[in-house]
């Protein structure tokens, strides 16, 4: 019996550890990072695990150093990642902008905590704007993947590394303190079978070939940078056309569609189950890619006559709601309920708000 056909056992893991195993199954052998709560299990796990399998773990002197070590490692074509949480991710934004400009693949995990500023260490979704609008300076986007369970977090790491390589772009995995810290049973994912383009751009010493340069500076001749940005834009258009991912739950006959991602969607799923038990036609729409955002599907749903209203639920004071409104495009009303700074949306409050408009 081949290894692939052996039924894998369920294991119980913390989200922060499961994502490491997902990354390792994806072929990542290089990790650079700097401690910050609530993602410290990631460097702790990688520091033990990577040397066992011939990889390199290095604790950087700062997030600035970490993301630039990622740049250096990515130049080799090998799969590399870092992880951090909100304030640390802010520090990495310059580097992420460079990665986007230099078209270097990398995976960046953000276990979001409350902000602004030092904020707190509790789970939040308040980095939505930062993650989905590029985050750093310049004309670019990063792919943003938002899992909602430990199983999905492990699985999504495989997808993240594939997307990073296929599109030569940094990919952000956006979780939060709940997802990183909680333990759930999961079956570790299988390696990817997706075809990855040959990496004919790496720098490893110009042996028997012309030297290559990996850079983000494009001074001359004008309009070199505009041409480059238009090339990036074409890539982003392709990603928007082909890589949108979302989940629909109890949506077919729904009169009220609740939109939520990540941990907030877990609250919403429970609310949908409770309201369905009372024969209320309520459903959950869960974006998995926050960028590219599933605007088109939301537009389709908003054109259904059954659908009366959309409810956007987030662990912030209303960030994704702007994208939901863009998708719904004025066809239906979009209401919002959110808690911020480490507070979790409450089921009974949400139920009350939904029943008010049902």
């Amino acid at each position, binding site marked *: 019996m081949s290894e692939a056909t052996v039924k894998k056992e369920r294991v119980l893991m913390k989200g922060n550890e499961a994502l490491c195993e997902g990354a390792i199954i994806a072929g990542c052998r290089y990790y650079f990072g700097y401690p910050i709560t609530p993602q410290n299990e990631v460097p702790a796990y990688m520091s033990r695990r990577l040397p066992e399998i011939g990889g*390199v773990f290095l604790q950087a*002197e*700062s997030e600035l*150093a970490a993301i630039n070590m990622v*740049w250096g*490692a990515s*130049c080799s074509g090998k799969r590399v990642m870092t992880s951090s949480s909100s304030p640390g991710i802010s520090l990495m934004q310059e580097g992420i902008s460079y990665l986007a400009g230099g078209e270097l693949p990398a995976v960046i995990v953000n276990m979001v905590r409350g902000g602004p500023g030092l904020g707190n260490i509790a789970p939040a979704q308040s980095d939505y704007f930062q993650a989905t609008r590029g985050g750093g300076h310049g004309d670019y986007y990063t792919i943003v993947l938002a899992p909602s369970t430990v199983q999905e977090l492990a699985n999504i790491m495989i997808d993240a590394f594939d997307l990073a390589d296929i599109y030569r772009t940094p990919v952000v995995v956006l979780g939060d303190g709940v997802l990183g810290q909680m333990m759930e049973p999961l079956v570790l994912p299988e390696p990817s079978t997706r075809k990855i383009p040959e990496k004919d751009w790496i*720098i490893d010493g110009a*042996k028997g070939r012309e030297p290559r340069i990996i850079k983000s500076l494009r001074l001359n001749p004008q309009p070199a940078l505009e041409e480059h940005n238009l090339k990036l834009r074409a890539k982003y258009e392709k990603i928007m056309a082909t890589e949108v991912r979302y989940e629909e739950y109890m949506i077919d006959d729904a009169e009220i569609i609740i939109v939520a991602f990540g941990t907030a969607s877990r609250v919403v799923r429970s609310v949908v189950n409770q309201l369905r038990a009372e024969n209320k036609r309520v459903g959950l729409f869960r974006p998995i890619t926050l960028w590219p955002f599933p605007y088109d599907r939301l537009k389709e749903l908003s054109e259904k006559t059954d659908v009366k209203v959309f409810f956007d639920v987030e662990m912030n004071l209303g960030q994704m709601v702007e994208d939901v409104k863009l998708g719904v495009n004025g066809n239906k009303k979009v209401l919002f309920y959110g808690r911020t700074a480490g507070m979790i949306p409450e089921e009974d409050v949400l139920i009350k708000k939904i029943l008010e408009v049902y």
Partner: protein
Amino acid sequence: MKAVYTRPKSLRDVKMHYCPGCGHSIIHKLLAFAIDELGIREKTIIIAPVGCSVLIYDYIDCDGTEAAHGRAPAVATGLKRTMPDKIVVSYQGDGDLAAIGTTETLHAANRGENITVIFVNNAIYGMTGGQMAPTTLVGQKTTTTPTGRNPELVGLPLKMCEIINQLEAPYYIERVSVHDVKNVNRARKAIKKALDYQNKGLGYSFVEVLSMCPTNWGVNPVVAAQWVGETMADYYKIGVFRDRGLQQGVK
């Protein structure tokens, strides 16, 4: 006829963008000579800094990449940790290495990364138009120290070789200059030695090169070279700070 001089093969035959009298073109050439003589062109990766020498990859015929301002040692670390058998050169100016990137400089040195840092110290920010550098001398006028650097306001100029020499891990630390022929020859040997040590897997090397920036100093190239030899070299002492290879008899 016997050729007494030829351009190093690793230096492309193109016109450089540097100002007349700038030291970068000399230092690039010394680096290219070292790469040729050690036969490492096909395994060398040059990291270009932010500053005038960002275009070094247009001149040295090797693979290259850029680093964000100050982050070249971190990029070098990522390159070297994934490809330990390649030669990684971090070429940096004074603002890059000793102001915005001091942390990365010290930590890469302290880890003993098997890389070579070439630190071009010309006591001023070149590309941005002549602002105070961490290595600007006391009393030196720049666009942001119009009456001269006042140590009571901004501290004394940083001596990076001396600071790095406090760390245990670095293998080779030397300060050289390119203001005259004698010193250019010495700098050539130092750069070659640093790359040779890296090629032999011996560890971190740091070569500080005192260099001229006549444009931003507001003097002609001759005066600039004299100023390096007389004034800069008086504060930044030329010499070997550490050479473990010499101590250990590395050939």
